[in-house]
C-alpha cells in the first residue's frame, strides 16, 4: 500500500514494527546500496533503508556526489539563511536531554514585547529576513502570547517560522493568518519506548499527539512543515528511516506544502544525560546524503549545533538551509550571558563570517526568499 493511502500517519505507523525496520536496515547488501544510488532523487523507502545501512558506509563518497548534484540542480548554488530566536525558556515538560527541562534550576525568562523588539533589532542588523521563533511549553506561553508576538515578527521579517508545542488545527489556522509561514515539530524519536523514557512528564509525553501534529499543520494551510528526529535518543538509522517515511506520507497526502528535515545531534546542555546512541559526524553525513537521495526537493536544515568544520563541508552534501550567529537563550542577542540556554552552540561565527565562507565556497547566501504578499 502507498503510504499516502493511510488515513493518518499514526495508522500507518502502527502497522510497522520498528524491530523489522531495524532488521531491514541492518541486512541491506552492497548491491541494494548500489541500486539505491542509481535511483538518486527518486528512491523508494526500501532504497532509503539501504542508504542508511552499515552496507552504505563504504559508498558514502558516491552518495555525496549524487546528493551534491541533485541539490545544485534543484536549489542552485545557494544556501538559505535564517536565525532562531528563543522567546521563552519556561517549560513544564521534563525532557532528559533539554536545558529548559522543568527540573533544571535555571533562571526562567519570557520576553516582553519591548525585549522582543530589542532582539529583533539585534538580528536585523545582520541582514536576516527569515526568523525561527522558539519557545518551551508552559501555560505562560500559549496562543495568546503567540498571537501577540507573531504580528511583531511579521512586521520586521519576510518569513516567520515557529517551533513550539503541538497545537490544534484551528490554532495553526490562526497562526497562519497572523503571519506564520512555517511550523517545525520534530518527533524527537519514533521509538515509543525511548520516547517515554526521555519525555517523562508534561504534555510532551503524549507520543501520538506529537506524531499527528504535522497533519494538523498541513490542513491549516501552512506553507512549510519541518520534520525530523533528534539524533541520540534511539538507533539513528531507524529514527532517520521513520522521519523519511513521515516525509513521504506527508508529501503524498499534503502536496501543497513544502517540507524540511532537520537532524539535530544531542549536545551537552544543563542537566543532560549522555547520548544513549552516539551519532558520529560520518553517520550524520550519511543521513544527510540519504535524505537527499530519497527526495531531491526537501529542504535540509543545519544548525549551529554542528562544528564550523562540519558545516563548511555539509553545504556540499545536500544542506540547503543554515542558521548563523545563533543564541539559544531568550534575550541572548543582547547579552553575552549563556546560563539560560537550551543547548550549546558549536559554530560561534558571526552571520557575516558564515556568509563569507559560503561565498568563498561558490554559494550565494540568500537572506530573503519569501514575501508576505504571496501568502495573501
Amino acid at each position, binding site marked *: 500500500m502507498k503510504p499516502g493511502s493511510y488515513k493518518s500517519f499514526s495508522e500507518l505507523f502502527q502497522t510497522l514494527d520498528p524491530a523489522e525496520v531495524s532488521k531491514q536496515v541492518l541486512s541491506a547488501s552492497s548491491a541494494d546500496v548500489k541500486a539505491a544510488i542509481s535511483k538518486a532523487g527518486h528512491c523508494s523507502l526500501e532504497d532509503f533503508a539501504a542508504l542508511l545501512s552499515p552496507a552504505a558506509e563504504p559508498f558514502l563518497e558516491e552518495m555525496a556526489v549524487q546528493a551534491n548534484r541533485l541539490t*545544485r*540542480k*534543484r*536549489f*542552485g*548554488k*545557494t544556501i538559505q539563511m535564517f536565525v532562531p530566536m528563543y522567546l521563552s525558556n519556561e517549560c513544564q515538560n521534563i525532557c532528559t536531554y533539554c536545558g529548559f527541562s522543568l527540573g533544571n534550576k535555571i533562571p526562567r525568562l519570557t520576553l516582553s514585547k519591548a525585549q522582543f523588539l530589542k532582539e529583533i533589532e539585534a538580528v536585523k542588523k545582520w541582514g536576516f*529576513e527569515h526568523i525561527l521563533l522558539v519557545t518551551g511549553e508552559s501555560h505562560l506561553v500559549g496562543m495568546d502570547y503567540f498571537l501577540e508576538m507573531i504580528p511583531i515578527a511579521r512586521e520586521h521579517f*519576510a518569513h516567520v517560522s515557529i517551533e513550539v508545542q503541538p497545537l490544534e488545527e484551528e490554532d495553526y489556522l490562526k497562526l497562519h493568518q497572523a503571519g506564520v509561514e512555517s511550523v517545525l515539530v520534530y518527533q524527537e524519536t519514533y521509538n515509543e519506548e525511548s520516547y517515554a523514557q526521555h519525555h517523562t512528564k508534561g504534555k510532551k509525553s503524549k507520543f501520538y499527539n506529537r506524531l499527528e501534529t504535522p497533519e494538523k499543520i498541513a490542513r491549516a494551510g501552512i*506553507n512549510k512543515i519541518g520534520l525530523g528526529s533528534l539524533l541520540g535518543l534511539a538507533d539513528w538509522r531507524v529514527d532517520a528511516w521513520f522521519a523519511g517515511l513521515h516525509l513521504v506520507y506527508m*508529501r503524498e497526502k499534503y*502536496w*501543497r*506544502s*513544502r*517540507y524540511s528535515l532537520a537532524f539535530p545531534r544531542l549536545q551537552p546542555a544543563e542537566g543532560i544525560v549522555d547520548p544513549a546512541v552516539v551519532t558520529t559526524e560520518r553517520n550524520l553525513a550519511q543521513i544527510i546524503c540519504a535524505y537527499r537521495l530519497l*527526495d531531491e*526537493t526537501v529542504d535540509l536544515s543545519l544548525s549551529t549545533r554542528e562544528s564550523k568544520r562540519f558545516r563548511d563541508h555539509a553545504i556540499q552534501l545536500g544542506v540547503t538551509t543554515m542558521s548563523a550567529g545563533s543564541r539559544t537563550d531568550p534575550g541572548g542577542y543582547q547579552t553575552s550571558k549563556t546560563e539560560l540556554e537550551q543547548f550549546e552552540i558549536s559554530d560561534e561565527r558571526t552571520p557575516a563570517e558564515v556568509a563569507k565562507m559560503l*561565498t568563498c565556497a*561558490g*554559494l*550565494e547566501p*540568500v*537572506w*530573503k*526568499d*519569501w*514575501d508576505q*504578499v*504571496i*501568502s*495573501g
Partner: protein
Amino acid sequence: MLQIADKTFSSRLFLGTGKFSSPEIMKEAVKESGSELVTLALKRMRLAEEHDPLVKNLDIPSVSLLPNTSGAKDAKEAVLAAELAREALQTNWIKLEIHPDQRYLLPDPIETLGAAETLVKKGFVVLPYINADPVLCKRLEEVGTQAVMPLGAPIGSNQGLQTKAMLEIIIEQSAVPVIVDAGIGAPSDAASALEMGADAVLVNTAIAVAKDPVAMAKAFRLGVEAGIQARKAGLGQKGLLAESSSPLTSFLSEG
C-alpha cells in the same frame, strides 16, 4: 525581431536569475547571453531597501526585467504579488507562475487562467507559465495574455523538450508568441525549440548551475542563434520522398 506587447527583442533567449552563486556571476552571465529580458522572483527582492542587490546587478541598459510570482499557490496570491512587483519595479510586465505542487512545481492551469484574466484587465502584460496544453494556450490567448510559456519538461530537470508533440501543436495554433520555458538543459535543446518554431526560450538552471555559468550563457546564445538562423535558412524536410522501384503511377503514361 520578436515583438511582445510594446517591446521588441533581437535576442530570443530569456534568462532566469535564481540559482547563481553570486549576483556578480549572474550579471556576467546575463551580459554574455545577450538576453534582453530576465526574470526576477518578487520573493527574492528586498523591497524595503533602496538598492536591492539583485535589481542593482540587473541594471543593464539593454535588459528589461520580468518579475515573476513564484511562490504563489493560487490566483489571489499571484495577483497580489503582481501588483506589488509592478509598484516596486515600475513595470506592468509579469511572468505569471502559480504552482501549488511543491515538488515538481507544475503550474495550476485553472488558477493561472483566472489570474491571467484578472491581470490583463488590470493592465498587465501577462506571460503565463503553463503546462504544454494547446487548449489552455488558446484560452489564455482569448483572455488577452501577450504570450504563452509552455514547459519543455519539469522546471530545473534539464530533460529537454519532453513535451515536443504538444509544443508543435501550440506553435502551429498560437496567435501570440510561444516561449518555451523550463526543462531546457542544453544549448541543443534551445536550438531545437527555435528550429521547431518557438519564438524564444527561457533558461535558468542549465546556465546557473553549470561549472562555468558565463561560458554556458555564451553557448546558449549561440544555440539560440543557430536555431533561429536554421529556421530562416529553411530546414530540409525530414524523411524521404519515396521512389518506388516499380512506379505505381507509371501506367498512366504508358501505352
